[in-house]
């Protein structure tokens, strides 16, 4: 999201500002720890195709415990599942899926939510009435019901998951952005822009949104974590991406009944989800702490 907003101005001063804000992270060990957790999974996900891993969907030897030796002389670091698939490889390829879809869904929800919020907050009047009403209807709706209905009827594809997350998160984002914009629109630089004769579009996208980014970045981090939970939860409930590609939630659902004799099969993906979400939440927490200091 940061890149999204800052790509508007690529002047050297913006670049140096970005470097400086990354340097700010050093003030908060919590933020650094969170960021390292996220980077850990991002790097693994990017390197997945070149790492020496078994094929995540190949049936090898079922029910191997962690650190047991493979038939071909290799090692099953985290064991294999009930279908004999290498769990380490499935967790890493699953990270790819989760990261791609959680990021896409959050970014799309943010674009929709920010546009709605900035229009409602800046233009006001009927725009505000209509957008706020739609948001309130969606907000008073239990999120999970929205997910279940959208996905059971439209099918479990990546696109529909993005759609469902957008429906569920955009109203909340809209509310935050609207509140921020209502405050910002009374600032002098907005009046200056209006006097210059800038179009409403320019004021909304170039003047208002970039200046509202502080609280939005923190919120985006939290939402990334929450979307990760959502996507894994949908996978767990059988509403996730279609098989056979590994999906953390589905890995838990498939192997949970077999926990009595091979608990590692469900514990490993559960730990993976938790650590990634923890990363997002700690980063958000650290960023909030830093922003409160100045």
């Amino acid at each position, binding site marked *: 999201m940061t890149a999204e907003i800052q790509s508007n101005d690529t002047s050297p001063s913006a670049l140096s500002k970005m470097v400086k804000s990354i340097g700010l992270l050093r003030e908060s060990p919590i933020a650094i720890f969170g960021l390292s957790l996220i980077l850990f999974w991002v790097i693994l996900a990017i390197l997945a195709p070149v790492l020496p891993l078994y094929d995540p969907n190949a049936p090898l030897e079922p029910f191997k415990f962690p650190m047991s030796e493979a038939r071909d002389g290799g090692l099953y670091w985290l064991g294999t599942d009930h279908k004999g698939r290498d769990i380490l490889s499935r967790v890493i390829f699953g990270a790819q899926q989760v990261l791609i879809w959680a990021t896409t869904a959050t970014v799309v929800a943010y674009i929709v939510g920010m546009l709605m919020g900035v229009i409602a907050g800046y233009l006001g009047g009927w725009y505000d009435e209509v957008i706020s009403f739609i948001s309130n209807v969606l907000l008073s709706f239990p999120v999970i019901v929205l997910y279940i*209905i959208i996905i059971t009827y439209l099918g479990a594809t990546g696109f529909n998951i993005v759609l469902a997350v957008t429906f569920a998160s955009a109203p909340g984002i809209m509310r935050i952005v609207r509140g921020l914009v209502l405050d910002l629109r009374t600032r002098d630089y907005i009046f200056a822009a209006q006097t210059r004769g800038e179009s409403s579009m320019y004021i909304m996208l170039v003047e208002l949104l970039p200046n509202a980014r502080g609280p939005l970045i923190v919120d985006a981090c939290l939402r990334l974590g929450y979307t990760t939970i959502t996507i*894994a939860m949908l996978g767990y409930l059988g509403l996730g991406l279609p098989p056979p590609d590994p999906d953390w939630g589905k890995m838990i659902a498939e192997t949970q009944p077999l926990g009595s004799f091979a608990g590692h099969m469900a514990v490993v993906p559960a730990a993976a989800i938790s650590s990634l979400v*923890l990363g997002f939440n700690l980063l958000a927490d650290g960023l909030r702490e830093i922003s409160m200091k100045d």
Partner: protein
Amino acid sequence: MLILAFRRFLSMALIMVIVSFTLFAIFESDKLAVAGKVLGPYSSTEQRELWLENNGYNEPFLERYVTWVGNALTGDFGYSIQYKSPVSEVLWPRLANTAILAGLYMAFMIPLSLTLGVIAGMKEGSLQDRVVSVGSVLTTSVPEFASATFFSAIFVFWLGWLPGTSAMTSGFSWAEIFLPVFVLVVYGFGYTARMTRASMAEVMTSHYIRTAVLKGIPYRRVIMRHALRNALIAPFTVIILQLNWLLSGVIVVEVFFAYKGFGKLLLDGALFGDIYVIEACTLVAVFVAVFSQFISDIGYTLLNPRIRFT
């Protein structure tokens, strides 16, 4: 207050109509597939059409919707294809089971999170504050299906203290309900605790607390008599509004522990395409969501003397 109640009621009715109509319309385009699920994968299209005809699904769309709405208003939610019985017979016992689950969750979560939040917020930046803050981030980062996996690995499979499923086949059992409630509390308490902490920390910096301390009132009494009342307004609304997203946790926990509750009914109904079950469950969920918002608004005005509806 009455105007507020009326507006909320009106918007709830509007949402319910929009939602139930949309669901009906979606089902309309999908009903052959549902007939296929009832009659099995090898049934012919003619058989499926016949089934739809015999069960009244081929009546004009609007007419069916209006009839259903009329019946629903009198408490008759139609007939479940999956359970082969009236929806209300399935719905109410399931709802009662979930109410037990949610009630126990609230009974443990509220005292726990309020206490922790107040302890942390009393002294911002202190050790107890750090512990509670970091602890609550940690627990809210572990979604229910993950913590359920961890806790069953420990308490069910390793120590063998608790049963792994909570189907309650031989009546209500405390041992079976323990883990579902525990999992919900561990995930859910952090949010309220953080809200309470923030609210308490804000109150503690206010002038009247400083005055009370400077007057020489014992610290304990300042907290109990002066700070708590104002600090607990915000958490109250948060707790009530939690009902809305508690439903996602409830569904996950009910599926994980095979607990026969409302959430599982909704999920199974949606996966099967059991239209009347979905309709009834969605209406109940929307009702709970809107009603809890209303309660939270009212409670907020009652607790906070600075806000009054004129």
